[in-house]
């Protein structure tokens, strides 16, 4: 741990899930370095510094929390594009989804996801899961070179 905080990119279409996730991250003061993309296209825009993200610095996020069911471009497609891009393919990606389906899990791992987390129904479990993800990926884990740190 070097005391620096990695940037977290949350790709989530449901505002309530966004709020609950941010609430969970706030408890660990991780919420400051969070970017929220509301669909797959926005996530790709962010990663490629396109559209409203044109002016951001081109560093990659330290981790990306990715929902699978998203409007426009779905999570698996986002994952596929990231993994086939030379500049983006090292970004750690954690799928954070409601889906228990083996199909989704298989597909995600085939596409090279770093972790697959099913959102727990229980709020405490959910908060704990998000917290632990945040702590691990934004603090404990050393992200690949070229990632954004503060």
């Amino acid at each position, binding site marked *: 741990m070097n005391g620096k905080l990695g940037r977290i990119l949350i790709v989530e279409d*449901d505002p*309530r*899930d966004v709020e*609950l996730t941010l*609430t969970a991250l706030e408890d660990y003061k991780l919420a400051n370095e969070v970017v929220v993309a509301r669909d797959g296209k926005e996530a790709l825009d962010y990663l490629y510094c396109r559209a409203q993200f044109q002016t951001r610095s081109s560093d990659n996020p330290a981790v990306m929390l990715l929902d*699978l*069911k998203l409007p426009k471009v779905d999570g698996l497609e986002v994952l596929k594009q990231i993994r086939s891009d030379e500049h983006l393919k090292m970004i750690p990606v954690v799928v954070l*989804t*409601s*889906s*228990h*389906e*083996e*199909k989704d899990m298989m597909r995600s791992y085939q596409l090279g996801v770093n972790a697959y987390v099913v*959102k*727990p*129904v*229980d*709020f*405490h479990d*959910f908060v704990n899961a998000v917290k632990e993800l945040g702590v691990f990926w934004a603090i404990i884990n050393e992200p690949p070179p070229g990632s954004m740190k503060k």
Partner: protein
Amino acid sequence: MAPWSLKSRPVSGRILGYGFSVACVAIALGLALVFQRYNFRDVELPLFDLAIALTAWYAGIGPSVLAVALSTVCANYFFVEPVYSFAISGRELPYFFLFIAWAVIVASFAAVRRRIEADLRQARDHLQLEVEQRKQREEEVRKLNRELAKRAVQLEVSNKELESFAYSVSHDLRAPLRHAVGYSELLQKQCASLVDEKAQRFIKTIVEAAKRMGNLIDDLLAFSRIGRAETKKTEVNLEQLAKEVVGEMGQETKGREIAWKIGALPVCYGDRSMLRLVMVNLVSNAMKFTRMRTRAEIEIGCADGSGDEVEVFVRDNGAGFDMEYANQLFGVFQRLHRAEEFEGTGIGLATVQRIIHRHGGKVRGEGAVDQGATFYFSVPKARETKVKAASAP
């Protein structure tokens, strides 16, 4: 058309047949008279024979009898001494009878041939009919096949629909629940000091209800997955499996006195992970429903080793159930105990039944209130040689 062909009947119809007969005899007579004119001797009778033979061949018995009669009369009148009379001289008589006998033999041979031909024709017709019937049946089979294929496609479609239904349940139904729980808990935290005990209890109830719904959805999804998953069948040593399950589950019951008894169980043929789920469900039920006993007794054994199936039972001395409601035991979300007494969603035995049915086996339960319960399931036996191989170290 060849005259020998069974299909050809050049002279058919009654009148035509007799006409043919008369014509043949007339032509023979004409030819005979012509030959006589040019002094060829003794050709007339062979000519008449030819006419009779032709008639018999083509026109059948009736016309050939007529031909014999006409030929006899003509031969007698025109060629047998004394000529131009119907009288027969003694010298010509044997010769004349020989001619008639010959004619009759030819006619009868022809008749026999015709009968054979008729039989053959009948046989052919019969065969043709059979061929047609077979064609029809084949067509029916093909039609059924087509329908079956259509059904299979429909089934596949509805299976896909079911799958996407389960998928959307998994994705979309859980999210609102998570929000209900999450926001209720945030509310609880936010206004813990502001609301009274009653309101606190209400919020708690909302959270619990939503969590329960989450559990129900999870159970239902797992249950539907069992129906959709492919079974990978191998030989499964049930005794080993039972010991494994008991060993694992037993760790959860520290502080309780449970007398386990695992009898000799055979090797069966089935999907190991599914059968393991059966064992886990039955054993955990037995553990749950014996909770109030100071000394719980749980026995796993084999009830009937004969036949092609093995019947395994799990017996406990727990709460039991009323046999009157035994038919509800294996229903989805069916419970025979109150939730305050024994927790659970009521999916365990439904899962057991589904797995065993997928193995072609049967399930049943026996019990009495407060006297324990026994649950039986049957699965196909592994073959004898396989049993030996499997039990070898």
